[in-house]
């Protein structure tokens, strides 16, 4: 083969390659995600190269800096009009930059900031062998109770990897509600789920329980991912595309044949409906809706409490964002198909969460069931299928995430010899011993219960109002009944804290550092501000409630 032949092979081969267009990426508009991913990569490098002593400070600083920069980017984009007039679909149709996306990304970042502060808390437990300890295992890979673990504790190891892991999870969550095609949706889901599985496994205390929780979460998460992926495949078979816009176009008939190879399956409604149900199931698993909720109590209880708070808040925001976009952008033509189904899911979720919570004896499991009931209330807003439904869900998510992180942060404070004292009987009389902590927790519980002057009331009122206006009055009735049932167990905890005699061997309340104090303060402030003067934030959510198509 002479040189000419070789040359012609190169050149002829090069001809068609030139026809592949280079993807156009709007880096500036994706900056919130890119900053977080970049910081996560830097964090991994820091784990490799920064000496062990300096890692904690480096990671905390890097994480908070990245989140701050990312939030600044979100604000800049919103101020630049990307939330309203300049909203469009970036990255070759993969990611939407619009009002709901920016609002939810902002919420996720702020919730992550306060959650990361609890990750970094090192004052709650007494120093071990002279080393400050946080909520995470000295060395996650060591066998619990083994010699290796003891050595790691003695050496003062800490799992500072939790910070880059959290950043990866946050990056996935930022993409999830903005994903504008099914593949991006799936990848974002995996990007935020995998770090969460790991984070669940690294508790310092009760390690076996933590590892069991992580394994359950992983198995069930993988199970649901399989359903989601199968659903994506079926939808591709139906529409010949994974793009939201194309699928929506095929559903309403405005887009004809896309791919001749799929001519046989195109427009087959069975594929559409089954594929839709499977994708929906994948998202309902993430929001913790009945009957896909069963992982929630076990995982919430087993995971390190700061991780539980982070998961409960940020994951829910991301997953509801994705659910909203799926239902409002991809399937508006199917409203009459999905609404009755979602009605059923919302009802069993509200009632199921509230009823089972009544007999819980562990505060973390109680909060887990509470989060299930709240998922039901949020679904009621989703079902409204109106712009006010979208804005009410956005507002509710913002309000709820701060209450949740604050509540779990308070849980980390109440401790006895075995770590956190999560059994409810130990909380008896807490109000006598630590009036301030008990009062703060009472504020969070009242917000969960939706008592006026707290953010919980404003949010629940907005959601129910939207649902009633959207023609789901019966759902609102069920929601109010579920709220009444739920109020019972929230108030019961308050009664337990303030009107019971403290036990002699009760838990002590640890005095936190400024980090957890900041988290709890932020939770209380947001709860009261959104309860007393919600209008500005309702307006903000209202402006951000238009999806780009």
């Amino acid at each position, binding site marked *: 083969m002479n040189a000419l032949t070789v040359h012609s092979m190169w050149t002829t081969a090069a001809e068609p390659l030139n026809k592949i267009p280079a993807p156009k990426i709007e880096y500036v508009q994706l900056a919130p995600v890119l900053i977080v991913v970049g910081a996560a990569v830097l964090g991994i490098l820091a784990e490799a190269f920064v000496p062990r002593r300096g890692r904690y400070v480096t990671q905390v600083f890097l994480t908070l800096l990245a989140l701050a920069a990312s939030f600044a980017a979100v604000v800049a984009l919103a101020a630049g009009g990307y939330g309203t007039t300049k909203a469009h679909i970036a990255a070759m149709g993969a990611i939407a930059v619009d009002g709901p996306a920016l609002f939810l990304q902002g919420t996720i970042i702020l919730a992550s900031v306060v959650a990361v502060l609890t990750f970094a808390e090192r004052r709650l437990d007494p120093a071990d062998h002279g080393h400050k300890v946080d909520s995470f295992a000295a060395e996650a890979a060591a066998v619990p109770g083994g010699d290796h673990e003891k050595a790691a504790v003695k050496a003062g190891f800490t799992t500072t990897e939790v910070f880059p892991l959290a950043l990866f999870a946050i990056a996935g969550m930022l993409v999830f509600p903005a994903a504008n095609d099914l593949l991006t949706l799936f990848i974002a889901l995996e990007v935020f789920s995998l770090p969460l599985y790991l984070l669940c496994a690294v508790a310092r205390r009760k390690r076996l329980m933590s590892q069991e929780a992580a394994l359950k979460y992983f198995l*069930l998460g993988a199970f649901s991912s399989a359903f989601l992926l199968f659903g994506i495949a079926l939808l591709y078979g139906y529409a010949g595309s994974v793009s939201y816009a194309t699928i929506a176009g095929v559903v309403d008939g405005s887009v004809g044949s896309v791919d001749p190879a799929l001519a046989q399956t195109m427009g087959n409604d069975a594929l559409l409906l*089954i594929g839709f149900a499977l994708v929906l199931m994948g998202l309902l698993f993430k929001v913790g809706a009945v*009957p896909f909720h*069963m992982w929630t*109590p076990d995982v919430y209880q087993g995971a390190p409490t700061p991780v539980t708070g982070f998961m409960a808040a940020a994951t829910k925001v991301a997953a509801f964002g994705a659910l909203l976009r799926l239902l409002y952008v991809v399937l508006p033509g199917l409203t009459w198909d999905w609404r009755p189904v979602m009605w059923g899911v919302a009802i069993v979720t509200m009632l199921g969460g509230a*009823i*089972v919570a009544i*007999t819980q004896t562990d505060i973390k499991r109680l909060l887990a069931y509470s989060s299930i009931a709240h998922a039901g209330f949020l679904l009621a807003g989703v079902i409204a299928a109106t712009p006010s439904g979208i804005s009410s869900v956005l507002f509710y998510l913002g309000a709820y995430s701060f209450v949740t992180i604050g509540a779990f942060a308070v849980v980390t404070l109440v401790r006895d010899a075995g770590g956190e004292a999560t059994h409810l009987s130990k909380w008896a009389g807490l109000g006598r011993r630590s009036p301030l902590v008990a009062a703060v927790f009472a504020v969070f519980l009242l917000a969960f219960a939706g008592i006026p002057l707290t953010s919980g009331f404003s949010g629940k009122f907005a959601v129910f109002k939207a649902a009633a206006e959207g023609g789901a009055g019966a759902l609102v009735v069920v929601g109010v009944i579920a709220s009444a049932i739920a109020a019972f167990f929230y108030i019961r905890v308050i009664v337990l804290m303030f009107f019971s005699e403290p036990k002699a061997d009760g838990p002590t309340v640890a005095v936190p550092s400024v980090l957890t104090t900041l988290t709890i303060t932020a939770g209380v402030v947001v709860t009261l501000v959104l309860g007393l003067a919600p209008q500005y934030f309702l307006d903000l959510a209202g402006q951000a409630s238009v999806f780009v198509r």
Partner: protein
Amino acid sequence: MDNLIALLIAAPLLGAAVLLCGGRRLDKTGHWLGTLLAAVSFATAVALFADMLGKGADDRAMHQRLFSWIPVEGFQADIAFQLDQLSMTFVLLITGVGTLIHVYSIGYMEHDERRRRFFGYLNLFVAAMLLLVLADNYLLLYFGWEGVGLASYLLIGFWQHKPSAATAAKKAFLVNRVGDIGLSIAIMLMFTTFGTFAFGPVLASAENATEGKLTAIGLMLLLAACGKSAQVPLQSWLGDAMEGPTPVSALIHAATMVTAGVYLIVRSADIFNAAPDAQLVVTIVGAVTLLFGAIVGCAKDDIKKALAGSTMSQIGYMILAAGLGPVGYVFAIMHLVTHGFFKAGLFLGAGSVMHGMNDEVDMRKYGGLRKYMPVTFITFGLGYLAIIGFPGLSGFFSKDKIIEAAFAKGGTEGWILGAVTLLGAAVTAYYMTRVMLMTFFGEKRWQPDADGRPPHPHESPKSMLVPMILLAVGSVGGGAVFEFSGFTEWLEPVTGFDHGHAPISAAAVTAATVAVMVIGVGLAYLQYGRKPVPVVAPRGSLLTRAARRDLLQDDLNHAVFVTGGTHLTRSLVYVDHTLVDGVVNGTAASVGGLSGRLRKLQNGYVRSYAVSMLGGTAVLIAATLLMRAV
């Protein structure tokens, strides 16, 4: 001049604020400040009165609007005052008698360490009472109405260390609440009927409303009047209210506050004129109360309670007169003012007697005091002559007019009401003579007090005697002044006046009135003047025993309201326990049971969780497909 109206209220209100907030440093001077501010208010009233006399009869009303109180779309309430001839009469009475009683209290309360507070409450009362009569709308009147109720409560219970005083204050407050509900309902009815509650528009358009509505408003106003003025059936609190210091009994529970009900009815004349049924009920309430109070007054041995029964009875006269319509309004107010003089004088005299007798109130332990307390005896005696209607004294003119007006009502009603008022006059003469004889005449029946100290009756200090003398002058001359100075013409522009058609001549009525008075006095003399008065009360007839128990008013209230209320509460509690709690607890138990069962689904095994998810997905798909199929 119009802008001086606010000063009337502001002066005593300032006094109340300073005295109640000022603390102990005002203990030595507080009573002077309180008295001075009451006198400022009186001086202002006199100046306004002089100004008013200089104007024509039809444009004497003055107005002052301070600010908008509750400005709401379609609901406007102003802090605004109206001073017309009716209000002026009251203002002079309240500030005049009020100032005298402030002066009297300086001496009477001298040894009380809480005197400053007492004067603060008195000033508060004067301010609230003036607000009541100066308001130009019913809502502001209601404010004053509640204000005098509060002051009355505080002053009845002023000696709160005595359980009986605390209980009496509570009783007065509770009974007054019943009447207050009537007033609030009346105001609401006015608002729904007329769209406003200012006197001007409401009274001007009263004729346009249906008679049913006007009757309802009138009856509710009457209920309010019954509460405040201690008329049957809300009379039970007045006797117990005598637990308060005597100056309070004189000012609030004789001269001013208890007459607020009469003011309310006369002020609402246009409403009552157009609602004859309501008027009839007003006269019946007045007639029943005037006999009720008189009978109770006959049986009481406690001097203040005897006078309280008399107050009730005299206000019954006024209410009756007010119920007669334009025939009686003027005389109701006239009797109100003369009664304000002589009853206040009588109470101050009683206080003077108690002051000299170690605070003894039982008349059976008095006797022969005229020699020891000559000034008290003379002033009390003049008040006594005034109240029984001795010719020429003030009570004679005003009561005689009411009796005439009652006859002038016409028909059977007129005869019945006339007879009742005449009978009342006889009983009044009887019980007042009894008080007079038991206190100042006969032999000494003095007993040592609880600490074993025998009484040393003596005349009271000058600060107490001067007000008594001034009030006695009013008791003697007030009636004649009104009679011959044209009081009827003075009030007529506000209340209207009508001579009516008397079936018998005025002279005959006067003669009958004097005759029954003589009979009453004679009977009392036979019983208490000719025979010695036993120190221990005899058992007495059934009526006497009932009258001593206030004609069983408390027994009736207890049987009907307390026992009935207790039974109602018990049955409601029973229903609550069995039915309501049963449903609630049953629901809670079933939800809890459901929770316990559902909880078992959460068994911790990943395999069963996965099955649940699979089942859920299957249902989801099936439901989605089914929806399409349907």
